């Protein structure tokens, strides 16, 4: 086994680290004894385990004379070998990718978590709404009506299916390409539009660039522009959940590029050591702006790194909504029941440009983009499955697309007309209470405006 890592087994069962090699990786999350490994385990396991997670600090000093076959080292027993052999750098075979639906939306196995009919239909509707919102907001940016936008093209299943598998009590620490999670949770089109237009009804008071959404009500932590800092935050918040003994976990999303940061490493390592309920969801979409994964790392993607940190991990087909849904459902159960982190790597091509500041046709072939858009479209694939289940019709499709477009256009038209934030919002929220220097500055600003009202911009309400 090329990527075999000699993991150290601790003495106590449930604390024991995973002992499986990557060849054990079949349908689900890499696992160990006494923990969830299969779907039937998953279905029978909803009582939360909350042991003291303090790792063993002591180890036995048992010596076997002069011919010991193993070394009792801090962290656990290591077996000796006479083979002079390095661990391989490149695997003989890449880690397999879990999927439920084939390219045309047909079930290839029954090894997945069942989705209620209503949920399945809502998932599809939200995927279409996300697509529609992305298309129209993107056009609005091109027309100069908003300054910036970023779509989730190609990652609709990742967005919606992962959101559908979570509970509203779970805390979301997004990167920036997960607006669909917020959409699923009930953030309205008007709220999205208000944020992008930075008007006075924006939940963020116009303080951030478009797409930096955030909502306490939806347990969705405000998007930060800094890449990957949210991964550490999710671990800290998971620690808070653990201390309170809550039946909830955190989930944090990040891209393949984000896994090169120190935050990614620190967060995974800390989460494993602190044993907190967090799901690390990597959207491996092949590209970090113009940097392909081949220039980003030489490991077999992201999934293999979880094992190195002592974290159960799975690779899923990000274009398969049922696979994503099943993986997140199971990961959530593991995270909460065992109070442990889980890593999911979802493979789904970034079918759009990185953002409106990017033209990806400059650095990747149009044919490649088109192939992914057509042959691996996650929305189409899920629709075909729904159709096969008798849950969707051509007429429903037409009606949905039509109404979605109208709703999004309406939201934009309303947001555009709403006044911008008032001048006082420059000063509030730096601290909980306005400090004296800002009070003075606001007073001085208002006096200046009064003296020179003819020069005052009309788009900043007093």
């Amino acid at each position: 086994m090329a990527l075999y890592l000699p993991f150290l087994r601790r003495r106590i069962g449930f604390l024991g680290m995973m002992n499986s090699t990557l060849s054990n990786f079949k349908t689900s999350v890499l696992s160990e004894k006494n923990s969830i490994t299969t779907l039937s385990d998953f279905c029978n396991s909803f009582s939360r385990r909350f042991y003291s997670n303090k790792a063993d600090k002591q180890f036995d000093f048992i010596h076997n004379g002069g011919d010991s076959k193993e070394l009792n080292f801090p962290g656990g027993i290591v077996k000796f070998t006479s083979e002079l052999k390095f661990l391989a750098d490149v695997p003989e075979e890449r880690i397999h990718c879990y999927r439920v639906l084939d390219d045309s939306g047909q079930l290839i196995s029954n090894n997945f978590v069942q989705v209620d009919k209503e949920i399945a239909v809502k998932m599809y509707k939200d995927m279409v709404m996300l697509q529609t919102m992305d298309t129209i907001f993107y056009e609005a940016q091109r027309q100069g009506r908003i300054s910036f936008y970023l779509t989730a093209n190609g990652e609709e299943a990742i967005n919606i299916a992962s959101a559908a598998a979570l509970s509203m009590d779970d805390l979301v620490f997004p990167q920036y390409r997960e607006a669909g999670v917020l959409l699923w949770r009930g953030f309205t089109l008007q709220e999205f539009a208000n944020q992008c237009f930075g008007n006075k009804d924006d939940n963020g008071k116009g303080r951030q660039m478009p797409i930096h959404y955030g909502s306490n009500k939806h347990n969705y932590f405000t998007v930060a522009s800094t890449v990957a800092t949210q991964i550490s935050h999710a671990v800290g918040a998971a620690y808070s959940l653990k201390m309170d003994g809550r039946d909830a976990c955190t989930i944090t999303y990040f891209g393949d590029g984000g896994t090169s940061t120190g935050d990614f490493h620190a967060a995974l390592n800390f989460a494993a050591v602190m044993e907190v309920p967090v799901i690390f969801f990597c959207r491996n979409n092949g590209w970090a702006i113009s940097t392909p994964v081949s220039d980003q790392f030489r490991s077999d993607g992201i999934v293999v790194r979880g094992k190195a940190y002592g974290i159960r991990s799975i690779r899923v087909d990000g274009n398969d909504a049922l696979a994503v849904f099943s993986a997140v459902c199971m990961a959530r159960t593991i995270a909460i029941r065992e109070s442990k982190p889980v890593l999911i790597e979802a493979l789904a091509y970034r079918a759009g440009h990185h953002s409106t500041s990017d033209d990806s046709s400059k650095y990747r072939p149009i044919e490649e983009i088109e192939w992914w858009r057509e042959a691996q479209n996650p929305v189409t694939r899920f629709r075909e499955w729904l159709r096969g289940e008798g849950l969707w019709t051509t007429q429903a499709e037409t009606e949905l697309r039509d109404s979605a477009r109208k709703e999004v256009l309406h939201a934009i038209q309303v947001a555009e007309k709403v006044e911008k934030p008032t001048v006082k919002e420059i000063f509030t929220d730096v601290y909980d209470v306005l400090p004296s220097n800002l009070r003075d500055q606001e007073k001085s600003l208002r006096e200046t405006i009064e003296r020179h009202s003819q020069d005052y911009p009309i788009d900043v309400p007093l």
Partner: protein
Amino acid sequence: MLIKILRQYQVHVVAGGGGAPTSFLYKTFRNSSSSSSSVKKMTVREALNSALDEEMSADRRVLLMGEEVGEYQGAYKVSKGLLQKHGPERVVDTPITEAGFTGIGIGAAYYGLRPVVEFMTFNFAMQAMDHIINSAAKTNYMSAANISVPIVFRGPNGAAAGVGAQHSQCYAAWYGSVPGLKVLAPYSSEDARGLLKAAIRDPGPVVFLENELLYGEAFPVSDEVVDSSFCIPIGKAKIEKQGKHVTITSFSKMVGFSLKAAEILAEDGIDAEVINLRSIRPLDRSTINGSVRKTNRLVTVEEGFPQHGVGAEICASIVEDSFDYLDAPVERIGGADVPMPYAANLERMALPQVEDIVRAAKRLI
């Protein structure tokens, strides 16, 4: 002065190991108070330890995290006894990377906890700068108060003794320039107790700059200071010594140097007013300006680099608000504009000394 302090410090490090953890506060407190028959004394270390202990007892959401804070009791024994008293869930030994545990502390603060993050020294917090600035300082504003960040970043700042450039820098000016942060720098045990309690109770991020050489120094404390309700308001400077001829502003260890300089100046009939800033941000401009309007002369003292330093900010404040009151140019004393050299003789020359303050004050009279 420096050598004397160093000696005290070494004694305390030696005395720091072992002992019954939960009774540490009372035991050491009794020891230090028994050394003086009438006035109670407490070291800065004890002040910080007791403040942490009391705030952790008062609020279950408060936790301490960092490298070596638990089993080892803190690199400088500031967290002595806290692991045994409050348990490993709330006194968290972390893996080594400031960027990691700072980010994780901030995430915990985003959702209900009130972490105190200890840096072994603020020099190492440079690794965590992204989180302190981008994730802590700006988040309440950027999230439109959806996310508040009640967190304290604390640890020794500035020069210790003989530890070279990467352990000896003062970061007061760095943090002091960032909106969203509050930046505190205690000098005495009273400051340490009152300001740390205020920092922990504050709803936003606070950078708390301690000084390694002061940990072992004992200061007299009143009954009020040792009371568990004691707290010092953030943003108010303290006039340590009244005077009428020249104002000396300083913070942290330099307050002690300034008070010493004032004693020497008094021998020559110069009555200096010494201001302990306590708070770098917000800066108590009114106390500073009020003093300068009275004395008409100003010396600023800090260990940090002079360019864009705390002294520079104070100068600007005086130029803006009290320029007409100045009878002499402001004298600004800072560390030498070089990375800290290791050799003791050079290190001494790179740091402000009492005699530098005396000379500067005399030049103004």
